[in-house]
């Protein structure tokens, strides 16, 4: 297994995540797509750490922090989405377009 294999995997995951963000209407699914992107980051970070910088564990540290932050983020985002659902009766992000132009 070479580094670029992992890089490709991560890039693919990341791209799928971006696609999800762009293509999904439901906020929750968007959030999940973002989680996908973050996981791509994590894979990449660990891979770099393992392949390029074996002694220092920087990548692993990054990963741990990202996972933590992502968890918090999801919690916060879910709360806010819930708020949106309460006020607008929808969780679709593209229907929340009262402010534009």
């Amino acid at each position: 297994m070479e580094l670029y294999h992992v890089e490709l995997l991560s890039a693919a995951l990341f791209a799928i995540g971006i696609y999800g963000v762009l293509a999904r209407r439901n906020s929750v699914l968007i959030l999940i797509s973002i989680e996908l992107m973050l996981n791509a980051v994590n894979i990449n970070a660990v891979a770099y750490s393992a392949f390029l910088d074996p002694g220092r564990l920087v990548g692993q540290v990054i990963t741990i922090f990202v996972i933590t932050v992502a968890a918090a983020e999801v919690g916060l985002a879910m709360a806010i989405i819930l708020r949106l659902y309460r006020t607008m009766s929808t969780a679709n992000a593209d229907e929340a377009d009262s402010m534009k132009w």
Partner: protein
Amino acid sequence: MMEWAWLIPAMPAIAFFFLATAGRCLPNWSAIAATGTMAVAFIVFWFVLADWFSMSALPEVKAFGFSFDWIKAGGSTFTWGMVIDPISLVMVGLVTAAALGIQIYTWSYMSHEPRFTWFFAVHSLFAAAMLALVLADNLLLLYIAWELVGICSYLLIGFFYDRRPAAEAAKKAFITTRIGDVGLLIGILLLFAKTGTFELSAIFTMVENGGISETVITAAAVLLFLGAIGKSAQFPLHVWLPDAMEGPTPVSALVHSATMVVAGVYLVARMFPFYEHSESAALMVTLIGAFTAVGAAAIALVVTDIKRILAYSTLTDLGFMLFALGAGGLTAGMFHLLIHGFSKAILFLGAGSISHGSGQTDIRQMGGLWRKMPITAVIFGIGALSLGGVPPFGGFFSKDEVITAVFDGRGWGFMAIALLIGFMKALYMGRVFFAVFLGKLKPENEHAHESSMVMLAPMLVFALLALFGGFLALSYTDGYQGFGYFVFEGTHQHPFHLNKGIAIGSIALAVSGFILAWMAYVQGSLKTEPIIKRFSGVHRVLINKYYVDEVYQWVIDKVVLVFGRFIAFFDRAFINDIGINGTGSIVTTTGRFMRYVQSGKLYTYAMGMIVGFLGLALAWWVS
């Protein structure tokens, strides 16, 4: 006394400032202030003249001047200075005398006018400007005075500003002369650019010793003459003068006799070395003078308003003077200027007296007035005979000088024209005099009355001058050997001489002119109506002043103002609305469209970020 000569223009100028600022408070003093200062100027003139004669015993002293620095900038110094030489002395004498007399006349003539003070103020300034003009020793000061003369004429012609024709005439006078002034100023600038000075004496020295090229001399002479055309109302800028009689009569008198119109003639006389050195320019002066004289004389024969007749006669005489100057007759031109000044002053003051006394201005409504206003009639008659060129009146001498000079300078053909002009002068002078004073008194003129002594006295003095002025041409003492020894070009002093043939011819023509007029307007043996009917086309052209005014009016209305409105529209619609506002609205419109990028949808925003990322990466990759 010569160093006090600056008082001559300064006195009336002081009167102007005094009257213009404080005059409102002291209305009763205005006439006295103006006339008093003018009298002082007149007296100073005599002292200066006496000084001149005592000094010019030394033959090499030709001119005396002094000056003070007015502007010093960029390495050049511009001065205000005066030159006192025969030409300027003649002019100063004429102007001070005419202005003084006319002001005295005005006391009575304008006594009921509420803006009496203002009249005297501007009248004084008018005289001051004219005096400064003739005394100026450099072209800059000359131009300054020249413009001041112009503006005073504007103010005076438009004195009755609440009458539309007066306002229009004033505007016309100023703008028309201003067109000529463009030429004058360009000529002056040309001379400054080539010589580096405005000083007349320095410029003349350069002209004499070839310091300026022939082309420049000709160009300058022509350009300066443009100024003269405007001020002296020569074709094609003559249109303002006949209208200028909309001003009060004393103004017309001053304008026509001593100030304003003769300024152009004076300019040509003053710049005479240029015309001596440029044959083509001199020929132009002759031709325009002759053309104007003939054309104007013809109009003077048909118009019926008394002041208009006199106005066209002025045009004729001015043309006549320039005719002489262009032919090389400096003496003749200046002499005619002097005599004409006095004579024309009489005629206008007389005309004023007539309309003042009878309330009429159209000669067809007059006739037989001598019964009601005998003194005016006599005085007017002297003026008419003088300008008609009947000996021994002054006008005869001057006219004879002019014809002789034209003959000497230009030969037979032009002399014939001069004689023709002389004949026409006599004819229209006879016409106006006979039609007004002789014949039957019209019933509506029964109430006509003689004017007051205050008005008549100056007229009398001018009448004497017109009557005997001609004898100035003759030699009396060693100090004064005739006008030709006094005013002369170059080194060419010459005594008065009569060319017998010419003299007899011109006398014959003058007398026959008067006789014809008498036959037509008094005796009635010559009927004018058939002639008018016969030449109705010509008559219509003449009555309408060759349609020059109409053409100009058309040009102004249909070309100049339309062009102005077009430019104004262009400025607003294109430069402003499209150019300036357009730039602004392009930006705002762009903003209005670009805001729709912000769709409000989340995915657009995310897409924007991705596009931005890709764009950045691409740009980086490429660079």
